[in-house]
């Protein structure tokens, strides 16, 4: 499976909608301090189900874009297009498809998920991603400042990691 496109609107430092195409291979994201690179990382893990605490926000409201002056926006949405899930997704999708649109929205203090545009529970998203070996808290996702964390965890915790991949 591949990540095709990520679309971010009203989330953290993203005011107007921004769409990034990922394609296969090696993509680099660059820019000066404080411009929003890690916020893109957060958007990607957010739409995959990561909790706001892991996104440097104490409550989901803090994820709504707040301009330098004036009020925060009322709604935030992150949408992810994933291709090539193949037969793994058979039962989880409303109908067979090569491309899947997964989105997560925050409005009125609550977050809702949509799959192919239709509202769905968080566990459906979790199952879908599990089928393609994607875990928003997985080891293939390394947050800023956390790379050596896997060495500093207890040997017990590291032992569990092997179970997760076995």
């Amino acid at each position, binding site marked *: 499976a*591949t990540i095709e496109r990520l679309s971010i609107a009203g989330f953290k*430092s993203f005011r107007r909608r921004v769409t990034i195409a990922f394609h296969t291979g090696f*993509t680099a994201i660059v820019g000066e301090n404080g411009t929003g690179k890690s916020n893109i990382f957060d958007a990607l893990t957010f739409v995959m189900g990561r909790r706001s605490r892991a996104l440097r926000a104490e409550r989901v409201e803090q994820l709504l874009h707040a301009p330098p002056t004036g009020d925060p926006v009322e709604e935030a949405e992150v949408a992810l297009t994933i291709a090539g899930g193949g037969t793994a997704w058979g039962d989880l999708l409303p109908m067979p498809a090569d491309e899947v649109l997964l989105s997560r929205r925050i409005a009125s203090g609550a977050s809702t998920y949509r799959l192919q545009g239709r509202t769905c529970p968080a566990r459906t998203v979790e199952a879908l991603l599990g089928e393609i070996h994607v875990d928003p808290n997985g080891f293939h996702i390394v947050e800023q400042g956390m790379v050596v964390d896997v060495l500093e965890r207890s040997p017990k915790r590291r032992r569990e990691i092997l179970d997760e991949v076995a």
Partner: protein
Amino acid sequence: KRERFFSVMEAVSSELDKLFRRLFNGGEASLALADPANIDSGLLIRARPPAKEPRLLDALSGGEKTLVAIAFVLALAAGRPAPFYLLDEVDAALDKANSERLANLLKEYAREAQVIVISHNEELIRHADRVYGVVMREGASEVVAMELVAHARS
């Protein structure tokens, strides 16, 4: 079940060693159970850089620990391949030579999986297939597709 675990541990351990040698230009690394008789005991990572005596993981330098950690994360693919790797500034502690070695390794992984890297490091960025620049204007982030220009100073 037990056999499955040991076969995965063996595969990941041997992959870890392969990646370690590649990133360190030598030396060796492996995984071991704290108590080989107890399948639920902790997992130890042994890492010995080239021309150095084996030592506690903790005594390794910042850059050395970074390379061991990255090798471990990538080695897990031998247990279960990940479709993409999302790495935010994992190269902060690396010198030029190690950044270059890491970039070459990631480029290879990018043939099988998507590799998305956030970095300030020119070594890493040079190896990318595409580059997105992020800027902030009036408190709002914007993303620009960037051209990789070959520098006069290689």
